[in-house]
């Protein structure tokens, strides 16, 4: 089993025995430019089974590379680990590109519901569950029906339809199964249809041609980011409610300025890269 990964800006670690003829015939390409081989300047044996190849061109840990050798038919793909990609998507959509503070989505619900902590938590939880489910269903529909049939122009109707149906179904089911739960979360369910984030997730996934897991990660990350933003905002607004805010700023204006200050603090996450 051959394994390889990018370990530095110019270095690749290869986890295999490489016989001399194969070493001379190594070919490394970026998957995007598979016709242009990158220059391997050195291949050093680290220990029994590990080699380190040095390249002239800079490598990126997020790109996909192919390493092959015609001499022994070896061929291996260098890709960032699956889970770290997913975690990167989640962190990115929850913190770095938080929908509320950098893309300004879901603001109506954000300002409407973040007045009290309990409603914020209720909405956050309900929304996250529905968003992940809707993200999944929309992805399935888009991937297996809209794209192959070239019905992309029906995206908006199809996605809002799924969301509406899902919300309706969830409402009916919860009402039947657990009245207490319904009393607690039912009100938020009907609000979800007017939250643009729930629609933005599948639309963004469709534009990016995301795979299933990435689509789910985006749905989870962004709805978690939304819930977090709402929770923190509600804590702050409860404090502000007790402050002697000047009359003309009371209510929405101060909430907007508070959101602006939040957005400015979230700038600290900008440019964050874990890979």
């Amino acid at each position, binding site marked *: 089993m051959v394994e390889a990964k990018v370990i530095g800006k110019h270095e690749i670690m290869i986890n295999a025995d490489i016989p001399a003829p194969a070493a001379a015939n190594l070919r490394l390409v970026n998957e995007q430019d598979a016709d242009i081989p990158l220059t391997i300047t050195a291949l050093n044996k680290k220990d029994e089974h590990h080699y380190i190849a040095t390249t002239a061109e800079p490598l990126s840990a997020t790109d996909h590379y192919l390493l092959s050798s015609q001499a022994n038919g070896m061929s291996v793909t260098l890709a960032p680990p699956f889970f770290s990609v997913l975690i990167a998507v989640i962190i990115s959509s929850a913190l770095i590109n938080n929908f509320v503070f950098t893309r300004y989505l879901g603001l109506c619900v954000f300002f409407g519901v973040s007045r009290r902590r309990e409603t914020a938590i209720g909405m956050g939880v309900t929304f996250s569950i529905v968003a992940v489910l809707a993200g999944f269903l929309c992805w399935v529909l888009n991937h297996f029906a809209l794209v192959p049939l070239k019905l992309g122009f029906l995206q908006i109707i199809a996605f809002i339809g799924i969301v509406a149906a899902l919300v309706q179904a969830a409402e009916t089911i919860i009402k039947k199964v657990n009245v207490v739960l319904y009393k607690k979360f039912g009100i938020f369910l009907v609000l979800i249809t*007017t939250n643009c984030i729930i629609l933005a997730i599948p639309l963004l996934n469709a534009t990016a041609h995301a795979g299933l897991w990435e689509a789910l990660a985006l749905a989870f990350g962004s709805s978690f980011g939304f819930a977090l933003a709402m929770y923190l905002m509600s804590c702050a607004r409860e404090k502000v409610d007790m402050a002697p805010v000047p009359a003309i700023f009371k209510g929405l204006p101060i909430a907007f300025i508070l959101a602006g200050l939040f957005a400015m603090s979230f700038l600290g996450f900008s440019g964050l890269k874990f890979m």
Partner: protein
Amino acid sequence: MSSPSAKVLIMRGLFDENPVFRLALSLCPAVAVTTSLKNGLLLGVAVFCVQVLSSVSASVLKPFINPRIRLPLFVLIVALWVSAVDMILAAYFPAIYAQVGLYVKLIVAFAIILSRMELFASKNPIWPSTLDGIGMGLGFLLAMILTGSLRELVGSGSILGITIIPTKPLLLAVLPAGGFFTIGLIMALFNWIDLMRGKKLSSGGGAHG
């Protein structure tokens, strides 16, 4: 509802129940695309069209709609007009559409459109519904123009891409945070005007936020 005059209907949308500054509905694009007046205008016009068309459709179709499925049908109508407007904009204004495309699609989740259909158009004849739609649409357009020009002027020193101030006076205004600040300050300004006019601060938008 005894049908109010055309002027009342339109002025209501523009000021007293301005969908952005008063009702705090349809906020996302109001912050997101108003980094320049041009973007704001395009989205404002898009919302205006969708609002008027949806209100009219709801009013026209009212006799044929089974009350049980009224809301799903309204959502469908909005989605229909949004998709149509989206495609038309994509075809004829590719340059601006590239920047605001996502937000045009998201008009479908605007609470304001659905709530006008539900609260007004489904209970009123066609003409008042049209006027109500026009009023609300214009109110949104006004908000977009106001915010867009303010942010573009302060943030990049230009209006509609034409340089007015040779430097960038306060770059902050075109950044995410600046959008929130600008809207918050304009809302405060609306409140201040009310206060000056001797009105009590309306609890409408203010208390609701």
